[in-house]
């Protein structure tokens, strides 16, 4: 169990397979979707999905640890459509392989010219290798971690 200090806040670590079920439970409990974010810690993606009960002022977080960086992560936007910006951000900044986002910005939410800028170099390399292994293809410079093919005005070439 992760260490959470604020009183009234809880955190539950769940396997990725249970993510949609747990999110659905919270939807049925009438909780508000508060935020989602990613972190890269010890070679894994740590995904946090937070929900709040606005009558009791509680704040509950679901934590998913993804050790295979190329693993497909289901989008929760079918349950909470307002998660779309958070999930687009997680994918663009960290390279989390979230699929089926309701409104998919295709890694152009922030118009950055560097891929996965929040991943450290080791993470970029690990993500690149994991993606190549998942596709059974040799790694090349066009995989994750490279500079996007972007023109000077910010548009794609």
């Amino acid at each position: 169990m992760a260490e959470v200090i604020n009183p009234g806040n809880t955190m539950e670590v769940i396997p990725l397979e249970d993510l949609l079920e747990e999110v659905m439970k919270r939807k049925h409990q009438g909780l508000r979707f508060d935020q989602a974010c990613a972190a890269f810690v010890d070679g894994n993606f740590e995904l946090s999905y937070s929900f709040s009960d606005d009558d009791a002022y509680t704040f509950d977080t679901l934590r998913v640890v993804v050790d295979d960086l190329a693993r497909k992560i289901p989008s929760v936007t079918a349950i909470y459509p307002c998660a779309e910006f958070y999930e687009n951000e997680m994918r663009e900044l960290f390279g989390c392989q979230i699929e089926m986002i309701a409104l998919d910005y295709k890694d152009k939410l922030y118009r950055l010219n560097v891929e996965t800028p929040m991943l450290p170099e080791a993470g970029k390399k690990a993500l690149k290798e994991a993606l190549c292994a998942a596709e059974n293809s040799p790694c090349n410079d066009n995989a994750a971690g490279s500079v996007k093919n972007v023109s000077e005005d910010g548009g794609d070439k």
Partner: protein
Amino acid sequence: MAKKRSVVPFGPQHPVLPEPIHLDLVLEDEKVVEAVPNIGFIHRGLEGLTEKKDFRQMTYVIERTCGICSFGHGLGYVETIENIMNVEVPERAKYLRTIWSELARMHSHLLWLGLISDAFGFESLFYQSWRIRERVLDCLELTTGGRLIFSVLEPGGVLRDINKDQEKEILKQIGLVEEELKEVEKAFLLDYSVQTRLKGVGIITKERAHEIGCCGPVARASGLSYDMRKLGYEAYGNLDFEPIISNDCDSYARCEVRIKEIHQSIDLIRQAFAKMPEGDLSVPVKGFPKGECFTRIEQPRGEAIYYVKANGTKMLDRFRLRTPTFANLEGLCEMLKNCEYADVGILCVTIDPCISCTER
């Protein structure tokens, strides 16, 4: 016959937008049927700096995320660090933080009143709102040395005190703000032309506001009564107040809630000065944070969430800031559906967008 649809780009440069946001508006004649927001014009990667700066230096970086929400961001960050390190801040520092927080809320809401006046073309109301705001900025300059970015926070407490003369001056100035606002708010709440532009426009029902995760004055104007100050952080637990809500759910309600919140801030500042004890301004913070924590505070624009994951060194593993505008973007899309094209500018302003914060 089916109406012909067209897509009209709105922004990123537009007279009503103080900061760049782009909307793709799908129109049927003059009616908006869908809006897709695009951000990303001013992303600066401030969260990424946490891996490269000492966690104490990050206070200054995070305060500079935005000029208007500056104090709140600094407060959310230092409070998160203090929670992780189990630091108990002196009582006086808590009250000082609360007073500066409320002064920041006042100047932010007065700024918004000016911007919305400008958006619906009431220039004299814009001037009056910003003239009143100057009094608040003067109070902030008097006590912190800065009008927008104060740099008075540090993990463990605050760097400056408010002496008796300054307290007297603040109380005098907020009294004048209260009087002058009472005059100006008549125009906002009773003027026919203002009501025409705001009443019944941009409706988000209570259920939808909850479903799409709205926060702050946008949520409270739709009848949702949550206000993170009720969590009792800093000195809020010792002050008497209730969240201000409206059940009208439209742009007028969002304006009304913000005006009432300025009066509420004045009341909270008076209560805080009356209850503020003497004592130290800070306690020494030794060592480095280890652990993780989510902290929520009520910024002028709504609930802001701060997440820190620390590994016991001076660099943090992760700092994350979820801003109110990020949450309210969904609300903006919701209120733009079925609105008239001429109302788009005003509706964008009614969520009080802060794109600098949103993109970090």
